[in-house]
């Protein structure tokens, strides 16, 4: 028995706690299930493993740049930099294994839910599958402390699996308005901003009168689409300006820590570039392991759930209104920068502009807003996103200070909502002691069940709403849409809505 205990202990320490190795193994299983040739299987598993190692290096560089940025800007506006007892790097080091298992178990739960509740959309946005698992784990650990790994995995996986099921489903009616078909769903953590943009949009304008695609934006804006460029530029400008107002001693001390001979001004700019570089490295690492894992998820879901639709990342809606994307990005960035000044002036919090999150969720909210209310809706959508990101970052940093506060600077709107709900329920449930953690997934499950029951009773057909033949096809690919319309009619029938008697 001692031997068995030793083996389990060894595995827990060396496999389940070493996230790189665990992700490598999960990838290996995924590639084997797809019956890839041996050399591709081994290469793919190794690439995924190296990707995780690169991710950790990127997080190290990113956190270093973040701390430098926050220190200088805080000094310039006379605030204390945001405090943290732990960093994202520490947190992933300790809980990375649990997070990898949450992703795997949550995907199984998600596939079963889609299959048996016929909710139709399979969540395939890989990097968000990763980050939502991180967010759920960080929130649960923040409230319940060091719980048993398996408890954390199961509780986290239920929350995450339910989110992946609910999010594409509730946004689906609006998504069909945006893309003019039901070829794919929307799987992105900007959904809250998109939903609000579309729902509030009808009070501000109309698609017919104010369509963004009748506008021509200055061409110079386009280089902001490269997020490496926009992050380096915006953070570089802010940190150099902040350096003018910062305490010279603080500036000199920070610069000397990097290189004793460097000019503090040059250092300030280099610090911003290192922040951008850290994000680029981090994303490169995530991309490496996703490239191996996501095809396995796609293959499995296609086998298990015939007739399902993939729910995809935000850029899949960008071609439907590219100008709305830029409007959403620019308006959100303006709102964020204004709030950055306001928060600093009232001495509340030192915000860090998250350029990726201003661009992608802002662009998505812009497209959804445009679909209802034209350019006014797009500006509204971007502004809602800017508000979410600024308030979310300021409020949420402290909430996660014992786990991974940096998540607050990397978050999309839905991340904040998941964190707030989890911490809210957790705060109530922690009074129950050890079993309290189960209340969090239970509350998510009950909420989902009630919502589905209400939809069914009202016969609201969220799940399948046939597109009428006469519905105008959206620009820009009338031709491509026609192809897919034809293709659809030859494919097998769509899954039935939940209230139909069809038992397929």
């Amino acid at each position: 028995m001692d031997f068995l205990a030793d083996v389990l202990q060894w595995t827990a320490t060396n496999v389940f706690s070493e996230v790189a190795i665990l992700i490598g193994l999960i990838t290996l299983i995924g590639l084997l299930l797809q019956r890839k040739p041996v050399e591709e299987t081994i290469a793919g598993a190794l690439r995924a493993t190296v990707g995780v190692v690169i991710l950790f290096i990127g997080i190290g560089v990113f956190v270093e740049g973040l701390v430098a940025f926050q220190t200088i800007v805080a000094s310039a506006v006379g605030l204390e930099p945001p405090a943290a007892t732990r960093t994202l790097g520490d947190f992933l080091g300790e809980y990375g294994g649990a997070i990898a298992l949450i992703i795997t178990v949550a995907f199984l739960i998600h596939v079963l839910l889609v299959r048996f509740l016929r909710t139709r959309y399979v969540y395939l946005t890989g990097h968000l599958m990763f980050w939502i698992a991180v967010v759920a784990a960080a929130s649960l650990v923040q409230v319940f402390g060091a719980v048993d790994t398996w408890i954390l995995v199961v509780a986290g996986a239920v929350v995450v699996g339910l989110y992946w099921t609910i999010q594409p489903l509730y946004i689906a009616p609006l998504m069909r308005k945006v893309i003019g078909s039901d070829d794919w769903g929307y799987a992105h953590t900007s959904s809250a901003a998109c939903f609000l943009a579309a729902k509030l949009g009808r009070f501000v304008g109309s698609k017919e009168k104010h369509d963004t695609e009748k506008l021509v934006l200055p061409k110079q804006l386009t280089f902001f689409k490269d997020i490496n460029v926009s992050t380096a530029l915006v953070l570089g400008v802010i940190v150099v300006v902040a350096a003018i107002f910062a305490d010279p001693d603080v500036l000199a001390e920070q610069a000397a820590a990097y290189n004793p001979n460097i000019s503090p001004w040059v250092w300030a700019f280099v610090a911003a570039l290192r922040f951008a570089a850290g994000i680029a490295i981090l994303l490169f690492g995530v991309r490496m392991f996703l490239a191996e894992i996501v095809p396995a998820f796609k293959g499995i879901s296609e086998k298990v759930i015939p007739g399902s639709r993939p729910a995809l990342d935000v850029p899949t809606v960008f071609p439907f209104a590219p100008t709305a994307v830029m409007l959403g990005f620019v308006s959100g960035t303006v709102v964020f920068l204004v709030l950055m000044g306001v928060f600093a002036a009232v001495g509340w919090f030192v915000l860090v502009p998250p350029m990726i999150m201003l661009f992608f969720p802002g662009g998505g909210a812009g497209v959804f807003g445009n679909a209802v209310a034209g350019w006014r809706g797009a500006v509204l959508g971007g502004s809602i996103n800017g508000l979410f990101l600024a308030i979310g970052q300021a409020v949420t940093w402290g909430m996660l200070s014992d786990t991974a506060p940096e998540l607050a600077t990397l978050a999309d709107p839905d991340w904040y909502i998941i964190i707030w709900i989890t911490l809210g329920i957790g705060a109530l449930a922690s009074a129950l002691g050890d079993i309290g953690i189960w209340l969090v997934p239970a509350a998510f499950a009950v909420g989902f069940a009630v919502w589905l029951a209400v939809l069914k009773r009202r016969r609201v057909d969220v799940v399948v709403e046939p597109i009428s033949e006469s519905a105008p096809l959206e620009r820009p690919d009338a031709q491509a849409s026609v192809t897919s319309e034809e293709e659809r009619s030859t494919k097998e029938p769509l899954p039935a809505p939940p209230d139909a008697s069809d038992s397929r």
Partner: protein
Amino acid sequence: MTRQEPLRVLTVCGVGMGSSLILRMTAEDALRDLGVTAKVEATDVSSARSMGADVIIGQGMHTGELQGIAPVVITISNFMDKDGLRAQLAERLGELGWLN
């Protein structure tokens, strides 16, 4: 210009993680249908510039800036539309004599 074997194809999106990966799978299927052996990678706009590809596929928002980076640059607007992409690939690869 002769075709590389395998053809080096990049699918591009802003960050190179979500939609470009879906596009990679669509492109792999389309190229397989055409009988072209290809190595397809998903990447971001910045990296695509230095990766030396034969074919770049992305949405119009990015392909505008990537013209001239690769011999063939294809613009798509539906990431799932395999048939549309196959038709575009057939036409453009055919022009270069890259379809056997």
